[in-house]
């Protein structure tokens, strides 16, 4: 196709906006339950440490939350904006989970989060905590709805084909799609991994800062000696416990999350071998039938020609184990699968006006192998590295503080990015691996329920319009990312006192910090 192709640029737009949105979302999903548990612990124990943790991590949670909300609006609109043929084709079944997400999850999430933010000292304590739990539950439920919608594109179930369009026949089947259940579990654990690494990296920085400033020291028994610095806002003795506890919670959550990600990912992989065999073969660079898992393959993965791909390191039997749980079943390779796809779904795009100039083009069933092969490995690699680092971090901090070297602190902070990268790589892999379909065919489902991406774009919308939107959205997203990071950094550097200004006693040494505020003063204000 020519360079001014609306399809290609519309795909870039969807990719950019979705990957960006899914930087905010996993942090929201991962941090939310952690903050809620902290507040629950505060109520149960009355320990000031938990109160500070709720305030500090809650603040960062909110700075990030709003960006997820703002970028999520684009997602709700862009199916109709740029993908009207897709919306017409799938609307009968795909629109329902989106509408339910808004009605049953977004309302809950936003309303109860508003109650939580402004409800400090206003609502009874138990109800205030319940508001946070309800808001967090809303986020989790919203993840379920949107993954039901996405999973239907990966594995359409619960529909009949009426007049060439899928029509919902069984809502229970749509909502209990095994693809959705495994993908949801995978995404939730992936998000907890993001939350865990976020806590770990920032808490490490705080403990390191306390050591660097000479507040905490290490005694002859190598155990921490906790001190305080009255001249620095919030750096009292309790402050140390806030960060050590946060670090440990973060590390444990990150490790548990990785275990969950591995188990759910295994289940998901087994389903994918059945449901989208070509995607998994492309993730493997597996050209021929076989049983070996490729640890490293080299050659021109992007050449779309399997003969250019050379496996360098392979583990015999592992691929069969991943797909079927044994070591001997042959897994079909790309060269065997493509003829099957061509036989079932055609060799050329049909002569239909919705394909425009593309009608009659040869269909390339092989996803971009560089993306699927490396996306799959980066996802697993970044996830594994983060979990291993969390384990090491627990060990290094066993005596109550972090080691002195600056590079370790920098590593812990940069390590925050690893689970984010794993999440992005996973989604890019699974979405790009679905190509050339936007709705992948279900091998055991109703015939004819599938759609090529080439037919999905809005016919009336021009290249120029989408170019304008993709450029403006990308620029604005980039600017907002700078603002979000600047604020996060400022609040992190401010420590707990950035979220609880009363801790800064330098100006008002007499001010008591635990006396209740008068009822008519807002506990929180924009």
């Amino acid at each position, binding site marked *: 196709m020519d360079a001014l192709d609306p399809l290609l640029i519309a795909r870039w737009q969807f990719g950019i906006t979705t990957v960006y949105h899914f930087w905010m979302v996993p942090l929201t999903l991962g941090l939310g339950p952690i903050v809620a548990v902290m507040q629950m612990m505060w109520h149960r124990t009355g320990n000031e440490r938990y109160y500070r943790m709720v305030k500090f991590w809650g603040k960062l949670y909110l700075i990030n939350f709003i960006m997820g909300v703002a970028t999520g609006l684009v997602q709700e609109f862009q199916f109709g904006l740029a993908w009207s043929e897709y919306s017409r084709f799938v609307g009968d079944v795909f629109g329902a989970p989106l509408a339910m997400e808004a009605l049953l999850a977004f309302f809950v999430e936003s309303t109860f989060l508003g109650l939580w933010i402004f409800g400090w000292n206003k609502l009874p304590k138990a109800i205030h905590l319940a508001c946070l739990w309800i808001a967090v539950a809303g986020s989790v439920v919203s993840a379920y709805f949107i993954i039901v919608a996405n999973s239907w594109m990966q594995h359409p179930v619960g529909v009949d084909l009426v007049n060439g369009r899928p029509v919902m026949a069984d809502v229970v089947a749509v909502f209990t799609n095994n693809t959705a259940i495994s993908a949801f579990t995978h995404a939730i654990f992936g998000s907890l991994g993001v939350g865990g690494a976020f806590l770990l990296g920032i808490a490490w920085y705080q403990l390191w800062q306390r050591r660097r400033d000479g507040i905490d020291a290490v005694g002859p028994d190598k155990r921490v000696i906790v001190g305080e610095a009255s001249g620095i806002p919030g750096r009292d003795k309790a402050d140390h416990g806030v960060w050590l506890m946060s670090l440990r919670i973060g590390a444990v959550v990150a490790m548990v999350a990785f275990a969950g990600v591995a188990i759910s990912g295994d289940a998901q992989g087994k389903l994918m071998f059945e449901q989208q065999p070509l995607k998994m073969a492309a993730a493997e660079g597996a050209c021929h039938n076989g049983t070996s898992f490729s640890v490293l393959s080299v050659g021109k993965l992007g050449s779309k020609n399997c003969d250019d791909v050379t496996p360098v390191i392979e583990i015999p039997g592992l691929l069969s184990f991943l797909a079927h749980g044994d070591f001997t079943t042959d897994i079909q390779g790309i060269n065997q699968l493509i003829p099957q796809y061509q036989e079932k779904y055609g060799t050329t795009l049909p002569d239909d006006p919705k394909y425009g100039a593309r009608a009659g083009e040869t269909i390339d069933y092989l996803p971009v192998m560089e993306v699927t092969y490396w996306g799959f490995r980066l996802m697993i690699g970044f996830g594994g590295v983060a979990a291993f680092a969390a384990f090491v971090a627990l060990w290094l901090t066993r005596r109550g503080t972090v080691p002195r070297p600056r590079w370790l602190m920098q590593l812990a902070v940069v390590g925050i990015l690893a689970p984010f990268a794993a999440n992005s790589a996973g989604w890019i892999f699974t979405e790009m691996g679905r190509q050339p379909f936007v709705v992948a065919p279900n091998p055991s489902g109703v015939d004819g329920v599938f759609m090529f991406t080439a037919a999905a774009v809005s016919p009336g919308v021009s290249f120029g319009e989408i170019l304008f939107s993709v450029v403006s959205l990308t620029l604005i997203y980039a600017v907002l990312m700078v603002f979000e990071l600047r604020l996060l950094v400022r609040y992190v550097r401010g420590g707990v006192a950035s979220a609880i200004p009363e801790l800064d006693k330098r100006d008002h040494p007499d001010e008591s910090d635990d006396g209740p505020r008068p009822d008519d*003063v807002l506990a929180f204000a924009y």
Partner: protein
Amino acid sequence: MDLLPTLWFAIIAVLWTGYLFLEGFDLGVGMHLLFSTRNENQRRVMLNAIGPVWDGNEVWLVTAAGATFAAFPIWYASLFSALYLPLIFVLLGLIFRAVAIEYRGKGKSMRWARGWDIALGLGSLVTAFGIGAALALTTTGLPINANGDRVGGAFAWFSGYALIGGLAVVGFALVHAAAFLALKTDGDVRHAANAFARRVAPIALLPLLIWMVSLQVTRGTALTWTIAVVAVVAAVWASIANRNRQEGWSFIGFGVFLAASIASIFIASYPVVLPSTIDHAFDLTVSNASSSPYTLGVMSVVACFGIPLVLAYQGWTYWVFRKRVSGSHIPEARPVEPAVRRS
């Protein structure tokens, strides 16, 4: 009679009414921030009046869009793709607005806060205008072909109705926000809001009136004319209440004006959801644009349970935060400083 599609047409009208009523004052408050006569304390009073509720109010828009997708995918696809550029601007406006509300108070300088105020004000203005234009055009028509696709290029949607609809929502939001601030704040902001509503209402509500009446002239029935009269009476009543300092009644009156206007517009449009200005044979109607009876049935069950629940807990939120916000309530802003030893 298509019972379920008609029910869903009504539900979508209700969702839009809910959105315009609730986010109407949020958007209006955003626009009021552009008036530079207010000082920082007053601006924070205004923001905190909508603080706990604005995000929940915005979900009405997401739900209206999602419900249109679920119940009338053909309408959703045609309307959104035809209005590609205006809706992109709505999205950009909404993004700036949301981020501005959350971030404006977290900076170090007045320049930071003022910068976000402008983002918030312009974002609100663009959003209100774009939503108004889109709603007006779905009632008055777009150049769509037999497949529902826009013909005539990126700006083919533009017409006088886009302008009237855009101004209708901008004008209503300004007045409604003034009535809201009069009801929810105290002190200078309250007095300024009362005066604003009194001065501006007669002009600002005019575009919505024009949109409503022009639709009655072409497609009105006895019922819709009656509702239109109710709308006008409510607006007059709201203005009188405003002069008598009955702030609650004034706010409700402007709300009834909105709800009745939208009702008369949607009922007059029925059963057409998106007319084609090329050929009425291409009109999208509740029957040819809707989902299957099964999907509509499932969604009806969800809505019957979901919408009352939303109304209940959002209502409770307004009850919890029912007190007026005044300047003395606003805590002093404290800059965030690094918790490190300065060497």
